[in-house]
């Protein structure tokens, strides 16, 4: 079976984002970019399913600027077989990405689409669910364990207060939580091979998708900084402050 893994290029998670001086957007100029960490987990899970003999092909997709090619090459270096870039300079929002992915899912007919539960830039946590809805497929989001048996996926997912295990028919969409796996590091031979693996570029118009944004960002700002408070000398002083100053106990 084929697995489609959408990956997003985002600000490297080690980099603290900064707001542009005019407050219109986050400043992305010359900032180190990397694959969304949850998507790395998605690539890893797809690779493990392939290595286990369950998947036969892993196709990675990224939507956005030409530079997303780097993210795709990273995924290819982790072992994915081929890549598709949906190239556009329009700001893509989750619904638009879900529609692009739907068009590709129709073309590619994967049995599983695995993607991160959210991107660490906009933190929307929507794309996987939206794709599942548009395809009329079941979904298993925030996955912490995935097993595929007899045309069904059994997925343990992280929910408030514990874990829930779902059984979904295939094809289906799975989104990854942090504890699903620990992504591997690319091997040198695979990094070198990645350069030669196929990467095709399409445009949203080729897929017949209108990607115009639906949400307008009016402004972005850093939240008010919390001021450091006082140091207390000992436990007695702490209890006194909590009782008499903060009045929280």
């Amino acid at each position: 079976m084929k697995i489609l893994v959408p990956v997003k290029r985002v600000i490297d998670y080690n980099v603290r984002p900064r707001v542009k001086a005019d407050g219109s957007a986050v400043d992305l100029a010359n900032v180190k970019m990397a694959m969304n960490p949850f998507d790395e987990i998605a690539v890893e899970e797809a690779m493990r399913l392939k290595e286990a003999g369950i998947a036969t092909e892993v196709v990675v997709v990224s939507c956005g600027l030409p530079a997303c090619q780097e993210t795709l090459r990273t995924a290819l270096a982790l072992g994915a077989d081929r890549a598709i870039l949906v190239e556009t300079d329009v700001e893509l929002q989750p619904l638009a990405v879900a529609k692009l992915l739907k068009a590709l899912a129709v073309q590619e007919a994967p049995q599983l689409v695995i993607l991160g539960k959210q991107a660490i830039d906009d933190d929307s946590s929507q794309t996987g669910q939206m794709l599942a809805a548009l395809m009329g497929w079941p979904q298993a989001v925030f996955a912490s364990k995935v097993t595929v048996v007899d045309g069904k996926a059994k997925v343990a997912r992280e929910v408030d207060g514990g874990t829930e295990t779902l059984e979904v028919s295939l094809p289906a969409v799975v989104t990854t939580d942090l504890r699903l796996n620990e992504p591997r590091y690319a091997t040198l031979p695979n990094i070198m091979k990645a350069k030669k693996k196929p990467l095709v570029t399409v445009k949203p118009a080729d897929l017949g998708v209108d990607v115009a944004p639906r949400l307008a960002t009016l402004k972005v700002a850093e939240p008010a900084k919390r001021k450091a408070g006082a140091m207390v000398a000992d436990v007695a002083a702490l209890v006194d402050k909590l009782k008499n100053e903060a009045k929280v106990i």
Partner: protein
Amino acid sequence: MSNYAAPIRDMQFVMKELAGLDRVAALPGYEEASPDLVDAILEEAGKFAGGVLAPLNFSGDQEGSRWQDGAVTTPAGFKDAYQQFVDNGWPALACDPEYGGQGLPRLVSMVVREMWKASNMAFSLCPMLTQGAIEALALAGSDELKQTFLPNMVSGHWTGTMNLTEPGAGSDLAAVRSRAEPQADGTYKIFGQKIFITWGEHDVAENIVHLVLARTPTAPAGVKGISLFVVPKFMVNADGGLGERNDAWCASIEHKLGIHASPTAVMVFGDHGGATGYLVGEENRGLEYMFIMMNEARIAVGLEGVAISDRAYQQALAYAKDRIQGKDMRVRGGGDVPIIRHPDVRRMLMMMKSQIEAMRALAYVVASALDHAHASPDANDRARNQAFSDLMIPVVKGWCTENANDITSLGVQVHGGMGFIEETGAAQHYRDARITAIYEGTTGIQALDLIGRKIARENGATVKAVIAEMSALDAKLAAQEGADFATIRKALAEGVAAVSACVDFILANFAKEAALVAAGSVPFLKLMGVVSGGWQMARAALAADALLKEGSGDPAFYRAKIATSRFYADHVMPQAAGLARTMLEGGESVLALEEAQF
């Protein structure tokens, strides 16, 4: 404890703008090294260094390698990390494709090795020594030896060591006493004791391939009577599998100032009837092979100076941004600020940053020259690049490692009292850096090599060509506008004049008064380093300015590069005049006292 993030942006800048990655990639055999592949390699190697190796650096130092009954246990996590290092194919990066290597240029290998060394210097020594052993075998070993050992060494499944030093033979290897007795089957029995054997015994790989210097019974005395042997820890069967344990044992490991995770072994050969060894190349030519190999080992240790300095810098910088203490002198009535706002803390950080960038630039430029020396289709080009790297290797080794001692010391200083506390981690870099100026030839040995073999012996031909190249930059700097470039130009001109005067002094005096010249050889080596670094920083400023004008890339990075180059001109280049004076006038006072007067 600190994180390590590979300084990929500076690495790329130096590779592309100063070390001519495009020209290296144009050499026959290096076509693979396209910019996008190199970027991907740097990115992924950086992740591995930061994610796998760096987290073991502090714990490895605390725990250290342990010896018991001849076996060495490396610190927790090292064995797994090494396995991952091998599984991910990193050992093979620059090796010959014939034996499973990826055949990438030295320049690329240099950058990746900087990451291993910076993230975990003690760990990095294991692949570094293996690399050295691979090069020695590839250089002089028979086909049979190569087929037997190289594939598993290239993959990293077996590691390699260099057994040179003996209790009575350190810097002077002519004193080697280990014996090699020829056997009827063409092998030799090796007897003797070797010390300071880096990663001589460990638990991270299944076999260890020792390269051992020893004398055959008929060998002449001195350096011309030393041969090189391969002595595996486990014998290799005809089918390539591992056989009997060889008579090569680790008697103990050293308790050291730094690199605690790297086991430094005392090796005993032949205590139980003789260790089986195979001759590498011809008898009595061992030292010659070693020196060819050692050239590359020396630049690798110089790079270690860059790497450990960068790790110390990253840690100091993070602390300086984090630590709140004192007021900003420029703000009246302001609150407490991070210490990076204090002028002297900034000065220390700039001293670290500017010298690291200069050292990195020089090391990569020399690595690039080595690639041309090996792979250029033009014999003249090969010779010119070989001469340039031969001249510069003692400078890279000596200057970068001496600087590493100063820079890691500054790293401690930035932390104030916390720097003196082991838990902070700054002290480890300081301790780890100390060995770099000692092993693979002390700074004194490098300086003698520089003035004697590399300058006086060829009557200064190469160094004069380098001086001419440095001087040629003057016109370009003169064409630039602004105070930064004016300062850089003046500092470089003064520095080049200082080098030039000292070279004249060496050439005039080496033959008749070698001791007088030798007395100033280390100051001269530092002078060469300071000025060569300034030369590279001037080139860097010009390249950054051109890219700024072109409007491509990251303007903040380029502006910082120019400002850093200016800082180097203001704060480091003035050392040149003092060092020159020391060499030109200071030799006599070095030699003045009778021993009894000390």
